[in-house]
Each structure stands twice: as structure tokens, then as C-alpha cells.
């Protein structure tokens, strides 16, 4: 038995070292999430507007275009579940906060987990996963947040990124905002547009979370209003051609839900979903590029000024 355990130990030690190495690297790498949360805490005393949402908002709301001090806390695939919890976690420190922009897209009410991205929000933002037990939260990026395959590919990409000459987006976040440069190749072919629409259709069709997410969003709105903070819903445009492929039933349902929220809580909805005709403003069929972000952030600022 001793010989067996000794051999096993000799065999396992290199595996353990490699695993530990990955874990340390994944925990300490300077992610967008780390940059965003550092920026948020450093600007606690200045922020007047907080923008939330998924990548549409992350790449589409440029804080520099607002008259009031704005910070973008949206992130790739960030759900309303996390929007709410991130805000409430920091709300008491945000002394000047007056407005919270909540992004509501076609699929926003239909998902709460971000899949593997939940890990970053747990480790970097300290927001618990929705459906996992505490024990599993605390273990590891390497084993739980990602399959090892994804963890390895993140490390590999990070390493390879050092040698890339051209980037598709800014490497540093600007007040939480990360603009895309230009447009992605082949992003506007009919096939790719349809594929993207199918992604959204699949997301809404396979979901049974709408009612729960809607209730959670209502609670979020109530909590903001209690603190005299004005919640504002907003929808950035996607490229026009995509809308024809979206399932009408769900588009209508989404409009109904937004109308319901607007009326019940007397809140504004800045809706730009009909303004996606100019392809040069888009990075791909559903994300604005830096130029588009500038245009629509200015429009949001104009709309906001009307309320002041």
C-alpha cells in the first residue's frame, strides 16, 4: 500500500503543480472585470449615472458622451440578475448616483446565468452564482468555472494576444466602456445575421425564466426608487436586417413587458431599436462599434437632458 501511495503521489504532484499554476494565473490575471470593478470603486464619489446590461451596452454606452459623470458596468452576456446584484452591492457607496440605465434587449428577460462568465463575477465582483451551492462557488476557476479546456484556451489566448499586431477592441476599459474598432469581417452576410438571430430566438424559446426575471427586475426598480434613484430602461439598436429574423411572438411579448414596466413604475424607456439602418455604426449585426457607441450615447444624453 505504501508503495502504491508513493507512486500515486509522484504521479499526482506534477498534475497538482500544473493545476495550481493555472488556478493562480486565472485568479490573478488582469481581466476586464477586474479593471471595471477597480474603476467603479475608485470613482464611488463621482458617479452619477450607472449603465448596466450585456455586451450590447458594454460596447454601446460610451460614458464620455454624457454631461453627468457616467460609468459603464455592463459586461459580455451580463444578465439582469447580475445587473441588480452588482448595483445593490455598491449602491450605498455611490453617494451621487442619480440614474441607473438598465438595458432591456430581446433576450434580457429570458436568461439569468451567463454560463462560464458567472465565474468572473463571483471571483472579481463577489456576486454569488444563482443556482449553485456555496461549496462549489468556493473551489476553483479551473475546475468549476471553466472546464479545463476553456481555462487552458484563455491562458493560451492571453499569451498569444501579446504577439497580435491588430486588436478588434480596446485593451483597456474607459470608465467601464470597451469600444470595438470598425466592423468584423463577414459579420453582415445574410447567413451570419440569420445565425445571430437564431441565437436570440433559441435563447428565448428554450427559456422558462421570463416571469422570474421580470419579478426580479420589478424588485430592482422598486429598490432604486426607494433610494430616490431613477431607473431608466434602454434598448440600443441592432443592425436592421436582424429584426426580420426574430420570433415575432417574443418581440411582441418583450414590448408588452416593457410597456407594463413603464406604466406600472412611471419610468422611461429610451428605445433606439428602430435606428439600426447605418451599417457603419456597427461592429457586427448586434453590437455597435466605437462610432455607433458615440452616436447613441449622445442620443441617450439628449433624452436624459429632457428629463432634467
Amino acid at each position, binding site marked *: 500500500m505504501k508503495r502504491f501511495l508513493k507512486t500515486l503521489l509522484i504521479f499526482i504532484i*506534477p498534475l497538482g503543480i500544473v493545476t495550481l499554476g493555472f488556478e493562480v494565473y486565472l485568479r490573478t490575471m488582469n481581466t476586464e472585470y477586474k479593471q471595471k470593478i477597480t474603476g467603479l470603486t475608485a470613482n464611488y464619489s463621482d458617479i452619477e449615472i450607472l449603465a448596466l446590461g450585456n455586451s450590447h451596452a458594454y460596447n454601446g454606452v460610451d460614458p464620455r458622451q454624457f454631461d453627468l459623470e457616467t460609468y459603464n458596468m455592463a459586461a459580455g452576456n451580463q444578465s439582469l440578475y447580475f445587473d441588480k446584484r452588482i448595483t445593490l452591492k455598491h449602491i450605498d457607496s455611490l453617494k451621487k448616483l442619480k440614474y441607473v440605465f438598465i438595458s432591456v434587449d430581446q433576450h434580457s428577460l429570458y436568461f439569468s446565468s451567463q454560463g462560464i462568465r458567472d465565474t468572473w463575477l463571483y471571483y472579481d465582483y463577489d456576486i454569488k452564482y444563482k443556482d449553485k451551492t456555496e461549496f462549489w462557488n468556493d473551489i476553483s476557476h479551473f475546475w468549476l468555472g471553466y472546464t479545463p*479546456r476553456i481555462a487552458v484556451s484563455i491562458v493560451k489566448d492571453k499569451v498569444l494576444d501579446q504577439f497580435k499586431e491588430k486588436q478588434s477592441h480596446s485593451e483597456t476599459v474607459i470608465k467601464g466602456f470597451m469600444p470595438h474598432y470598425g466592423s468584423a469581417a463577414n459579420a453582415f452576410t445574410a447567413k451570419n445575421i440569420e445565425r445571430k438571430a437564431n441565437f436570440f430566438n433559441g435563447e428565448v424559446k428554450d427559456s422558462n425564466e421570463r416571469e422570474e426575471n421580470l419579478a426580479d427586475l420589478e424588485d430592482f426598480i422598486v429598490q432604486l426608487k426607494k433610494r430616490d434613484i431613477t431607473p431608466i430602461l434602454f434598448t440600443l439598436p441592432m443592425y436592421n436586417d436582424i429584426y426580420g429574423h426574430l420570433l415575432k411572438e417574443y418581440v411582441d411579448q418583450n414590448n408588452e413587458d416593457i410597456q407594463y414596466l413603464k406604466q406600472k413604475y412611471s419610468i422611461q424607456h429610451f428605445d433606439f431599436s428602430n435606428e439600426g439602418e447605418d451599417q457603419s455604426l456597427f461592429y457586427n449585426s448586434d453590437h455597435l462599434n466605437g462610432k455607433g457607441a458615440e452616436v447613441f450615447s449622445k442620443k441617450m444624453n439628449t433624452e436624459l437632458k429632457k428629463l432634467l
Partner: protein
Amino acid sequence: MLFNSLEFLIFLPVVFILYWYVFNKKLKSQNLLILLASYVFYGWWDWRFLSLIIFSSILDFLIGVSLSKTEEVSKRKLLLTTSILVNIGFLGFFKYYNFFLESFSDAFTFFGATISAERLNIILPVGISFYTFQTLSYTIDVYKKKLEPTKDFIAFFAFVSFFPQLVAGPIERATNLLPQFYTSRKFEYAKAVDGLRQILWGLFKKIVIADNAAKFANIIFNSSAEYSGSTLALGAVFFAFQIYGDFSGYSDIAIGTSRLFGFNLMQNFAFPYFSRDIAEFWRRWHISLSTWFRDYLYIPLGGSRGGTWMKVKNTFIIFLVSGFWHGANWTFIVWGGLNALYFLPLMLLNKNRTHTNVVAENRMFASIKEVFQILLTFTLTTIAWVFFRAENIGHAFAYLAEIFSPSLFEMPRFFPLTVIFFMILFVIIEWLQRDKQHALEFKNTKMPRLVRFALYYILIAVIFLFGGQQQEFIYFQF
């Protein structure tokens, strides 16, 4: 609990350490630990269904004791019948109730009558088909006086619920496994190390081969109407690798795990895709089930002792029942029937035991004839798998009709090079080791430890980097 889960990665070392370091003083306490660990392992999935295993264990234990106390034939028969009826009754209720209900309802409708019957929302307890057969082997063997009934209820309960093979086999005979619970088990270095190797190979089969093949098999089978014959043929091959990697992978992990605890389970798969005819395939595929049916169904029915008609009838019965054992759907019955049709000519021509040795024994390469035989057998088997995987019989026929159409010669829609590369590598490794119990068996090898370790590290890296999305083991549903 799944073998390829983090829970099991923690569970196994904990039980292993307790077994050899804390409970190693007394055989009874070791058996008790196995019993408790097995119940935790099973209860992790759904603790409510533990009651079924416990009930079956109590019943068969008591029936065994009662059989030892009576020589009266009618009483012995009654006891055996009770065991069979109750065990098969549970299996029938949980697995086949809705199937029979719908089939009768359809039959009445076909003849113009209607019956109102309500489907029940029944959850199929994991592994019920496996442990039911295992515990039945005990009462039948005790009835036939091939086995002394046990008075050690802990040993018996541990035998019925032995966690490595509880939910997906191998289906052990009481004559092989139960006596291993009576004798003290000594830790053997070589056995434990080989067990770990077998576990590693099982994980590779499951995670790299089966789970990756499953991804494409699922896409192709789920939307088969959209694809060409060539894509569907590829889908069927992917499924053939999926089911083999999945099920034999589970068996390897089960056998390897048992060896860590000093137990020997029977070999369940002996490189079946290298078979030269269907008879050989069935001697190499799911051996524990095939031999179970042979010993407890085929032979009691008269086997091949009678005339031609008896042979044909018994062959069909055993294959149809085997198909039905796999699931409550006509597709499985057709799958069984098709295999009977494949098998029958060999049996009638008395050629069903032509290939009892390992293919290309003592040679590196197979002859052209052997290659042709292997490919033909694989093709026939894969055609039968289409029925096994299809949603219903209509789906299977439509699938096969498209394969055997001119679109077979179009370029397939999918050709995942990485997955195909690993499938080819897998076949090569299995071919090189085809005379062993499993593909990572290195008995009396002169390979230096460093090289062996490097090989294991590469396998682990491949499992981590190229493993498919975690899927439940297919045979859990049976």
C-alpha cells in the same frame, strides 16, 4: 453520482482510504463500508429509490435463507417464482408500464375499439435493470443449488448494491461476486495500479470518444431529415463509437474501481468492433448480459439441444428479450430482432463458433479477408444501431432509406477532423492491445516508468483539453 464528476473524484479517494486504513481490521466492517458507500453513491442521484434496492435485497436474502431450509420441490418453486415475480414486477412497472399501456391502447384502436388508460408519470430508477438481474442470479443459482445461500446479510446487501457496477454493470453473477465478500481482501499493488490504468482508459473512452461522438450523433439523428445519406452514415458511425465508448468506458471504470478495492469483476467488452462475424460480436459485446441471458434464459428454454425450430425460436426469444431489456420502445425490439436475423444463418450453418480466438493472433496486421469480415460486421452492427438510436421505427427506416440513396455519395455536412482523428487513434490503440483485458494493460512491460507516466499525462491532457460536453452514460437509462 457520475464517474466523470467532481463528486466521484472526492468520493473515491475518501472511500478508498477508509476502506484500507480505517475499516481494514475486520472483513465485516469493510463490507459494511462498501454497503454504506454504495447507498451514498446511489442515493446521490435520488435517495428515494434506495428503498427499492433495500426491498429487493431483503426479499432475495430471505428467499435464499428459506430455500436453504426446504427440499420440497413445490415450496422451492414457489419461493423462486416469488423472487422472479417481485423483481421483474418492479422492473416491469417502472420501465414498461407506459409502454404496455400505449401498445395495448394502439392495438385496440387499430381494431376499432378504444380503451381509456392514463399514462403514469414514472421516473425510471437508475440501474434497475442491472441490479434486478444481479439479484435474480442469486435466487436462481441458490434454487439450482449452484450456490450456497448466504446468511451474511451485510455481504449480500453489499453484493446487490456494490457501487462500482451498481448502475450500469457489468451484471455480476452471485457465484462470482458474492464469495468475494466472504474472503478477506489483501491490497495488491499490481492489481490496484492496473485498476487505475483501466479507470483512465475508461475515462478517455467516455469523455473523449463517446462525448465527442455524441455531439455529432445527436445533431445528425435529431434533424436527420435535413441531411444527406453520407452525413447520416457518418452519424450512424458516430453513434456506434458513442455507445461503445460510453458503455465500455463505464465498464472499464467499474472494473478498475473494483480492483482498487480488491475485487475482480468479469470483462464486459472484449474489443467487439474487431469481430469477424455477428456471433463473435455477441461474445465480445456486453458479455455480462449476453451470458446472463444464455445461462438463465436460453439454456432453460432448451438452448440448441432440440431441433432446428427450437434453435430458431430460442435465438429469437433471447435477442428480442435482450432488445426489450434495453428499453421500452419498439425500436429496441426491432434492434434485437435484426441481430437475431444476422445471427441465425451462422447458427443454422453451424458457423457461430468459427471465430473464438483473437483476430490476427500473434500478428500485427489482419489479413485482407479479416479486414473485410471486420468491416462487414461493423457495418451490419451500425445499421442495427440506427434502430437503437432512432426515435421510432419510422424514423429508423427513413434514416436508412436516405443512407441507401444517391445522396450517400455527396460530401458529408460534418467532418470534424479532431473527433475523427481521436476515433482513429482510439481504434489503433485498441487494435494493438486487443489480446488484453483493456487497452492500457501493461503486464510484464519493460517500458520505463517515465515513458508510462508520460503516456498517462498525455491521456489526461487529452481528456481535459479535448473532452466533449459532459453527457450522462447512455446505459443509465436502461
